[in-house]
């Protein structure tokens, strides 16, 4: 399992690379800051899936839990754990 802070850092870096936006903090709400729109969200999801080797369950996707680097990292960590457990 990847250390939590390392995962958050990787996520922040990914957001920075993909969207070319500064992530002021790992808890910054990217939606509220207007940094993410629908096209950016789709690109980001695609990149997250590739980078972390997970498949986000978009049918049950809840944007409320995917608004900051820390939240995104938590979603990925939970998915990775489920996979390991299975």
């Amino acid at each position: 399992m990847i250390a939590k802070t390392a995962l958050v850092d990787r996520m922040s870096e990914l957001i920075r690379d993909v969207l070319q936006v500064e992530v002021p903090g790992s808890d910054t709400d990217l939606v509220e800051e207007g940094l993410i729109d629908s096209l950016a969200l789709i690109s980001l999801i695609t990149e997250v899936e590739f980078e972390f080797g997970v498949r986000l369950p978009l049918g049950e996707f809840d944007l409320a839990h995917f608004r900051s680097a820390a939240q995104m990292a938590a979603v990925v960590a939970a998915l990775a754990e489920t996979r390991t457990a299975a």
Partner: protein
Amino acid sequence: MSTLLQDYVARAAADRGDAVAVALGDERLTYAELDRLSDRLAAQLVDAGCVPGDRVGLLLAKQPLAIVAIEAALKAGCAYLPLDVDSPSVRLARIVETAEPRVLLSAPEAAPALDALAAAGFAPPAWSLTAAPIEGERVHSARTRTEWDLDGARPVVRVGPHDPAYVLFTSGSTGWPKGVVITHRNVTAFSEWAVEAFAMQAGDRHSGHPPLHFDLSTFDLHPTFAAGAELQLVPPGLGLDARGLAAFVRERELTQWCSVPSVLAYLARFDVVAQDDFPALRRVTWCGEVLPTAVLAHWMRRLPHVRFTNMYGPTETTCASSWHPIASLPTDESVPVPIGRACPGEELLVLDEQLRPTPTGEVGDLYIAGVGLSPGYWRDEQKTAAAFLPDPRAPHSGRRVYRTGDLARADEEGLLHYVGRADSQVKSRGYRIELGEVESAFAALEHVRECAVVAVEAGGFEGVAICAAYAADGDVEPPALRRALSDVLPAYMMPARWLSLDALPKNQNGKIDRPLLRELFARQAGRRRRQRA
């Protein structure tokens, strides 16, 4: 007496005044209210010196009062000019400078945008449509609702059917947006067609998804009012919330949905439309860009009770000029659906470089003739003359054709197929974007030594991605560049992919090698797709 656009609301108010005309969340206006409020606002616009031919700017979020503003501008004999509150102030200032609105109908929350406009030297009188005044640092509302919502005589201004009804600004290749002038007759012809073609009637509930500064909103407003139906504005907060948007369609029992394809793709991507969902829905239409056939097939399988219709047409020919009802589930999901046949009163012509018709099956430039044609670009004879040509079949008749810049071919059945663009214009989320406008804005930024903006197919659901390659001075952080660019370009024009290089690749002539850049960006995405598969 010719029908003018505002007559639709007046007619519906007389026939069924208690019916809802427009709703957003818990807010709603009946036809009687919409008619009365717009009469009152129009009377005050006239009182404030608005005369036929003037532009009345709209600088406020999409809401029932914005619809009141549109109808009021028309009743005052003016053309409405919808402005994007979220647009960077530089761009907004260019539009206001060019269009010279007599008044800006606005709201307190637009104070920052109004302040920025005033700082740039453009401060037409701003009115607050609400009871609360606009209290910016520089701008204070000249009137509020208390001063315009007054009992009085109905305005009696009537312009002619060929006078402007609205002016919409679209992306211009040189970095300066251009205004498309659309007349009452342009829109009444479109509306009458749409009402008949889509069997729109009182009792229908039609979606209002696109923003008002986008041409597609023409379809939401005027045909809906012509039918005496209900306009259900989509709450802006649902932009990212796929499930919320699906719930909105379900709970509001919409009967007609119209949006750009990317919205349909977004809902499909998040898989939020259940089997046989939206029982009230009768028709889904889209316009503005190509809907991936796989997405269409997904929707058709989920909603077998719904009719699906592709529409095609640029802003210059009023919303849509051709249509194609989808007869059955596409068998090959890799083949795009046709843009179909011309709407009545319009013609779509596929011509070669000498403006002669191309043989069936051959690709040519797509031209449009007929009732939808704009009289031209706002105060720009040069651009107008370049895009609106004398009809080559009767050069002295006064009839014109509009050069769309799209490439198309006709098949054996006479159906038209969109093939691509002849220039560097792209569509993203339904917006047309001149890559030249993005590139010139980018090139003008400090620290950017050279740059090129290209578009690549994003594949699958996403459509076209705008990609920016650049070489910059070492002392600038990429996010700072992005921020600087977002200060001058609206969000929908922002590049989705970025590539920082020491120098841009050049071809043998020393020009930037754009095909190679497209390949680099495509490979970036392709690598990821392969890895995932």
